[in-house]
């Protein structure tokens, strides 16, 4: 069913570009509106005023500093979203970005902290270590899939559990000497040469910001996004990947080797996933036990919201970051509990995926009607 529709999209001209965009936007916008209503109801029941809470959220988001901090939060989410999307394109559910980025982050921080080489090489070394470790960890799941037929959802969930255990051990083993039981234990701090410089000069064009720095990892995220777009739409590999995801049998008949594709897709997904933790490493200069969690699962959410599209994922990541920033301001002003934001996230995600599914069906039905009409015309 799906295969037919994707192929016939271009054949039947009914679908104007404007209409297609409208249909694609219907689900996410509807989801946001629904979640605003649902959270509003919850807030009323909980005894807060939803209107003033929303006013606080929007007012806060207009400030330059908030925008910068939103971009900072969106950066790792975006990378995580792209990592998940690479798998999704091949019909692979890489649930394991969670474990991959943490493994990658601790190894990258350790390597970065134990060597001192001139600037660019130092940064490059950290990034490459992260990609290799992330890719290798996902590669285990790839191997299990191709060699043993183990479903990647199961293996990556198990590998997440293993990764967390190993990291707990490594944090203790690699902690900087002299820091035994104090707060903020972590790997050896990375020398300044390895820290990607911040981009604060850009927001400074727009105004004065002092309290927040714009993360330099944004550049990495942008490169990841562009590479993802080019890889997917401008290379043979990308074509094979999409073909393998849409119709594995047809792709196989067309000469795509499914095992090879699964392996490469897992390695790429894990490699990109390895970069998720870089922003935090650069911010803190080390891996510490309070390293931010759940970026992998939220990356999946962001990829879903953005329909695996390079720009869509960016919008999803910014939306998630906006909600993060909003939870901060709600805590400060106290107009509503900041946990409201978590509920909004859940509602947005569930309604968005349901919405996408409905839109997909509407499209299929319209195409079928259009095709039938055309056939009838030809027959006449």
């Amino acid at each position, binding site marked *: 069913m799906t295969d037919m529709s994707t192929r016939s999209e271009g054949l039947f001209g009914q679908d104007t570009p404007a209409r297609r965009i409208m249909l694609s936007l219907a689900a996410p916008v509807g989801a946001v509106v629904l979640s605003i209503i649902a959270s509003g109801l919850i807030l009323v029941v909980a005894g807060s005023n939803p209107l003033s809470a929303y006013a606080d959220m929007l007012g806060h988001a207009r400030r330059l500093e908030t925008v910068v901090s939103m971009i900072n939060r969106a950066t790792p989410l975006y990378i995580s979203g792209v990592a998940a999307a690479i798998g999704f394109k091949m019909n692979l559910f890489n*649930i394991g970005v969670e474990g991959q980025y943490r493994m990658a982050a601790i190894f990258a921080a350790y390597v970065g902290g134990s060597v001192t080489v001139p600037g660019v090489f130092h940064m490059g070394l950290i990034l490459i270590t992260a990609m290799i470790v992330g890719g290798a960890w996902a590669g285990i799941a790839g191997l299990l899939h191709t060699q043993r037929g183990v479903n990647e959802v199961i293996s990556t969930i198990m590998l997440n*559990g293993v990764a967390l*255990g190993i990291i707990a051990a490594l944090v203790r083993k690699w902690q900087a000497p002299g820091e035994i039981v104090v707060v903020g234990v972590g790997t050896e701090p990375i020398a300044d040469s390895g820290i990607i410089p911040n981009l604060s000069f850009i927001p400074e064009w727009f105004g004065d910001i002092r309290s927040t720095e714009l993360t330099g990892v944004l550049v990495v995220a942008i490169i990841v996004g562009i590479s993802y777009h080019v890889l997917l739409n401008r290379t043979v590999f990308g074509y094979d990947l999409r073909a393998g995801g849409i119709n594995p049998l047809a792709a196989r008949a067309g000469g795509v080797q499914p095992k090879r594709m699964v392996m490469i897709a897992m390695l790429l997904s894990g490699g990109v996933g390895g970069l998720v933790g870089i922003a935090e490493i650069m911010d803190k200069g080390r891996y510490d036990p309070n390293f931010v969690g759940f970026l992998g699962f939220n990356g999946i*959410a962001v990829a879903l919201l953005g329909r695996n599209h390079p720009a869509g994922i960016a919008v999803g990541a910014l939306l998630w970051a906006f909600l993060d920033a909003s939870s901060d301001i709600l805590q400060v002003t106290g107009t509503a509990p900041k946990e409201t934001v*978590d509920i909004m996230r859940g509602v947005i995600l*569930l309604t968005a*995926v349901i919405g996408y599914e409905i839109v997909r069906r509407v499209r299929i039905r319209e195409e079928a009607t259009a095709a039938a009409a055309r056939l009838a015309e030809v027959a006449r």
Partner: protein
Amino acid sequence: MIQMLDRLPSWATWMIYAAAGVGLLAIVELFTGTEGLTSATTSSAMLRWTVPIMLAGLGGLYSERAGVVNIGLEGMLVLGMWFGAWGTIELGPWPGLAVGVAGGALGALAHALATVTFGVDHIISGVAILIAAPGITRFLSLKIFADMPTGSITQSPAVDGVGKFTMPVLAGGGFLGWESPDLLGWLRDLRWWYVSDLADMARGLIANVSQMTILAFALVPISAWVLWRTRFGLRLRICGEHPWAGESQGVNIKSYKYTGVVLSGALAGFGGAFIASPELNGIYLEGSTLNRGFIGLAALIIGNWRPGGVMAGALLFGYPSALGKRDLDGSATHSLLVVTVIALVLVAIWAWRRRSQVDSGLATFVAVMACIWFAITDTVPDWWVDIQPFIIVLLVMVFFSQRLRMPAADGIPYRKGET
């Protein structure tokens, strides 16, 4: 010998396996000089660690037998833990359990709505539940637990437990004022090798056990009966095997799928409420489900989507966890490595006889590595206990994934009339 085993009823076969397992542990204890592998404290702790994993696994069983993959079990455990704690604080233990069950079922209802009514991909909906559940409980904690004495946004006040049960005659205790003998305790005190080990371990399973635990274990045969011996079970399973065939027989596939998914959340909710009960935490504590939902999913898989298998899988994870939590120097867990090696050698022999040399070589290799590890160390690090269940699942998947058979239509979105 094997044929004789086949003729026995399944509970008797299970008993023989269990006795053989304890025998293996007793031998290992003898050779490595460790204690506690076969004690009553270990076996009763094993029950406490097993129950939530097993309930999550049984939950997954109902859902996946109805064809809906449920990776949101972890989120449903979280909901069950919160609602179980809240219900118990407000209404007492048994009604509290019902509230916990309802909480888990509510999470599952969202999953059913997305997957069954709207045909959303099961993994996607599951991830949404995983993300949403901790947010919901945090919000609720802020509104309710934070206002209670000793409660806060991340934890509840203390939660009461249900009553305990001790099997009369076998494990002592009393019955209507009658002082019962303690047969297993007497056997234990004889200090005969193996016999006393077996008696002590068995006594841990039936002495001073929470009624919740008994209910949980009773659900295993009940599930087997419901799923394989009733009309309801047959119809539920057709949803997971071939819903279109069921549809042609007039089965209302969607309503059965709903039932399966909601039951799955209810069981996970029970598991969550158990975590909040004094058997484990004694409070609701944020983040204390400890991946048990995922481990339950693992138990379901290595249990080959069968109730008895789920229980065996959950025990396989519960036992090392129970041992590890009490084993501060890591020596008991260290001696478990020997058990792993023996199991791997058996796998290697089995694979060799089936003429799959690659599997056999792989199993031997892992066995040798584990052997070397055992030989050059005296203890295992504490983190090994945490990752052991996941490693076991990965190993089982490596060697047996071809022999496991999940429901044929598991995870496939179903639309009426569309194949």
